[in-house]
């Protein structure tokens, strides 16, 4: 049985709720898009209900603790059907047995969960590192990214603390949403039909007059700090994979 939810974490948790209500423990949580492919399986639409989702969350926290419950949120941000299913089955197991040995690395589904979280954390860390702001003439610092996983929600607080006195916008082009900080609060933004979010490196008109100069200086710095006689392209590529280059000033 395919459970079709809206793609939100709360919706995902509602799938767990539904599974217990109907005793359909073998269900597979999916979003509408993914479900179109498998035409012949049975489907059930799951509506997102904050109350139900919160009951699941509180229940999980009671059994495995708050910190460990967050593991499942991070795993969910993988944006990956297989990891979703693995997490879903573990939550079901957690409630059926009233316990879950979350650090039992010898148990394959648990190991898989941790490996998935590790990937998410690596991508989160990379977003802290690889986001490059471009300053426009109205003092807005804009960054566009295309992370492998849906990790931008995990770095918002970091950027809010760090760049507390400047306005910024971080936008995930792949998932088509982002976060805007106005100096006080962070708001989630999605594009209106009228304002299209453009790659800020392509913006010529609205740029701060000094922006190009600083981009150029950063490139100069990057080149001058390399030691030719130690060149090691393989290592360089491992640290800065090519898929990130398009938004890295020093690699454009």
């Amino acid at each position, binding site marked *: 049985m395919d459970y079709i939810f809206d793609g939100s974490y709360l919706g995902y948790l509602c799938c767990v709720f539904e599974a217990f209500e109907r005793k359909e423990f073998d269900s597979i949580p999916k979003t509408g898009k993914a479900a179109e492919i498998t035409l012949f399986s049975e489907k059930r639409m799951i509506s997102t209900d904050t109350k139900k989702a919160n009951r699941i969350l509180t229940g999980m926290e009671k059994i495995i603790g708050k910190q460990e419950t967050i593991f499942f949120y991070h795993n969910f941000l993988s944006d990956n059907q297989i990891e979703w299913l693995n997490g879903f089955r573990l939550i079901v197991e957690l409630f059926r047995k009233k316990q879950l040995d979350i650090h*039992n*690395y010898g148990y394959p589904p648990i190991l898989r969960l941790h490996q998935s979280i590790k990937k998410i954390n690596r991508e989160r860390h990379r977003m802290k590192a690889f986001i490059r702001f471009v300053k426009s003439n109205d003092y807005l610092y804009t960054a566009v990214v295309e992370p492998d996983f849906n990790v931008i929600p995990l770095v918002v607080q970091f950027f809010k603390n760090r760049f507390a006195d400047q306005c910024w916008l971080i936008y995930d082009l792949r998932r088509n949403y982002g976060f805007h900080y106005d100096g006080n609060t962070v708001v989630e933004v999605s594009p209106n039909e009228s304002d299209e979010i453009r790659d800020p490196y392509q913006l010529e008109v609205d740029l701060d007059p000094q922006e190009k100069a600083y981009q150029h*200086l950063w490139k*100069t710095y*990057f080149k001058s*700090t390399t030691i030719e006689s130690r060149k090691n392209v393989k290592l360089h590529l491992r640290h800065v994979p090519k898929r990130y280059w398009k938004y890295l000033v020093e690699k454009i």
Partner: protein
Amino acid sequence: MFGFDDKLQILADAAKYDVSCSSSGSKRKNNGGIGDSSASGICHTYTEDGRCVSLLKILMTNFCIYDCSFCVSRRSNDVQRAAFSVKEVVELTMNFYRRNYIEGLFLSSGIFKSADYTMERLMLVVKKLRTEERFNGYIHLKAIPGASESLLKEAGLYVDRMSVNLEIPTEAGLKLVAPEKDHQSVREPLTIIKNEIQNVQQDRKTNKKIPLFVPAGQSTQMVIGATPESDFQIMEAANTFYKDYNLKRVYYSGYIPINATDSNLPQIGTAPPLVRENRLYQTDWLLRFYGFSLHEILNSKHQDLDLEIDPKLAWALRNPQFFPIDINTANYNWIIRIPGIGRQSAKKIIQARKYGKLKEHQVQKIGIAYNRAKYFMLCQDTLITAGFHYPEKIRKSILEHNPQSQIKGPNSQLTLF
């Protein structure tokens, strides 16, 4: 025309031989201004030689009154000279930081006029960043040997880390290439800062309002392979400095030949000792995080590190009497001594074995270097063979299995965070 761009090029180029890029270990919080340095370090990019770029690493100037033959900025070297103004360094740092290019500033300098004159300018940069720009990002400052105590202490109020380069591991080696310098002039600023760090830490226990002082501690750097010291001598020097000055880090910088006139130094074109450098870092790690003492790894009988295999494996092969270690019963301190098992995996093993004895395939998946570890550990289903393999045989089969990664050091270079 000599523009700002050229200046940056010259002064970044001259600073690239300083290897420290750490931006972690501080606790400066953002108080409404910009930036923080409380989190773990972040490498914002990597150079094409694979080194991490976390800080804007520049010299204030490459004019220098000294003539140390291993240094690119030495007085007698025919290179273009440049100098930044205080304002220029501040603006560059702020603009790079606001675009999230860097975690902060690493500022060093050649010595123009005198130690105090140079130190004062460095101090003015960091003071301006903290007080006028309300900048809370990471600042690593190179203290100038011979600068007055009051200047060093004032600068310490604004920086996260301070360092003084030891340059060459032994006094005798240093005299060979830099007759005007000595180790004593490095010990002096390190002592001043160490004492002040301790005083401030003590005072902050009772009064939280006392400002931070060099919260990420001190470090030093040695140039490796310019002079003929053995690895044992190098690590002995490091060990002593760790102990005497509570250093956070010692960096080892493989000498890159840049001097065609001094016949004491390796000639231009000689490859930098990358593998050796890597082995020294691995040894440093073993001493600081794995509970090894120096004489276990290096001693009068084993003066140099094995370039083909890592120092933990080399130690294990010399000490077969400790192996195999049963990962289901041994404590953490012994599990991390197994070649191929790091601290993370050891912790996972300890956690996982609470739920049942671990078998080989389970440990393998946890993320250890199984090909190395298998000779040294026992799992629940390990077949007990007749005794321990001959060390030479193990060494050979490990090297045969993966000769590339064992010999090509830089591919397995440690991340310096």
